[in-house]
């Protein structure tokens, strides 16, 4: 069991049998009053968000989440298919459930898939992924904007800022937590 004082951003809790992740958290306590814990939460299955304020005496269950080693295969429309690398069973997760993670999925990528109640609901990506730069404009010297980066598009369609020397066909490493450029990769 968890209590209200355990609540914090990123914590996963179970409400009415559904798993939620806390996306925003604020502690408040009016003068001489009770501690209040205001949480914005996202339902990990439906993606629905809601905000609720809890008091210190409230208790929560941990959702029974299980991680399985899987491999990303392909997408068919909004369905993203994965295969269990131990028993070769296949399953899919919707684009909506994957959210921003879609930007970093590569065919045959190994990752952890999060299951709730035997249903896949989310993935845990590797921290770093290497992706091919598919569109890069040449950098204009003497750019008056004063910025020392330029935007490029990678093979998944994701757009990010990179140093001027990156060109089309380069492989670059991206931090999946921030979506930021890390380095150019030599193959």
């Amino acid at each position, binding site marked *: 069991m968890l209590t209200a004082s355990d609540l914090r951003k990123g914590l996963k809790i179970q409400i009415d049998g559904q798993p939620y992740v806390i996306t925003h958290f604020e502690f*408040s306590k009016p003068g*001489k*009053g009770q501690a209040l814990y205001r949480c914005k939460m996202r339902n990990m299955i439906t993606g629905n968000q809601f905000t609720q304020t809890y008091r210190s005496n409230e208790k929560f269950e941990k959702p029974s989440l299980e991680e399985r080693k899987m491999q990303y295969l392909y997408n068919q429309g909004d369905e993203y298919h994965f295969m269990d690398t131990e028993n070769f069973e296949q399953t899919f997760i919707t684009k909506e459930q994957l959210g921003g993670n879609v930007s970093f999925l590569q065919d045959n990528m190994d990752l952890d898939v999060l299951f709730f109640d035997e249903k896949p609901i989310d993935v845990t990506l590797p921290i770093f992924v290497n992706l091919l730069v598919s569109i890069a404009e040449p950098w204009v010297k003497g750019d008056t904007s004063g910025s020392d980066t330029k935007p490029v598009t990678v093979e998944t369609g994701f757009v990010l800022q990179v140093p001027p020397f990156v060109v089309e066909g380069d492989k670059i490493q991206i931090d999946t937590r921030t979506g930021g450029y890390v380095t150019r990769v030599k193959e």
Partner: protein
Amino acid sequence: MLDQKGLQLRAAFFRAIRNFFQDQGFLEVDTPIRQPLVIPEQNILHVPSGSHFLQSSPELYMKRLLAAGSEQIFQICRCFRYGERGRLHLEEFVMLEWYRLDADYTDLMADCEKLFCFLEAEIAECNFPVSLNKPWRRITVAQAFEQYCAMSVEQALEQDRFDLLLVEKIEPHLGSNRPAFLYDYPLELASLARPKENQPGNAERFELYMAGIELANGFSELTDSVLLRSRFEEEYLKMKDCPEKTHKIPELFLQELETIDSAAGIALGLDRLFMLLSGQNNLDAVVTFSPDDLDI
């Protein structure tokens, strides 16, 4: 961790506060931070320190100094409240308390107005989010519940929703154009405050707000030791899950307070005031070391 500029500004802030109170004829005092027993408060968890507790407020000893003959005193000190951590909360924070003999809560409201205007005039980098032009707003707790929650305070208390409604529906409106005083609290929410004359259900207590953020809690002191003793006993009963419930009544405090006719005192969170003054919105950005800056 504060940079050089931040350290300079924080030092200027403390200096200006001391200058203000000295100019107004207040004496700076210091009292024990480790206290063998604490004033019962059902919603405050104390941090143990050996056989003592770290203070959650210096009020007990400030009031004993009044009883012993001081007339205007102030103190800037560290206070500790276990489990209070957030954008506007630190478990260890800096409190400013000041006390006046022969005064009531309206005198303290006037002090607040003068203090803030003094800081704005004194500190060049002062950047309060609202205007300090007088008059500051004064709204009773009863008015606030009627206006923002469409219910009476009594209803809110009955439904055990007072704190929730205060935080979610009322506080965001307080002090949005200039600072605001929320005053006259239900007696049951002001165990150390004097009942208001002609309104026995209310206590002479107020909270000061700026930009929706609570800065200070002040009240006219209850000095009737019989009444105080029964308030303490009621408060102990409410602390049913609290490990401090075995605390004794502070007898010396009750005895000495009895000798005071009237007095008023206020506690103001200096880190929050400094945060607003420096245009920040997070306490961690304005304290010398935030909890995340420490080795653990």
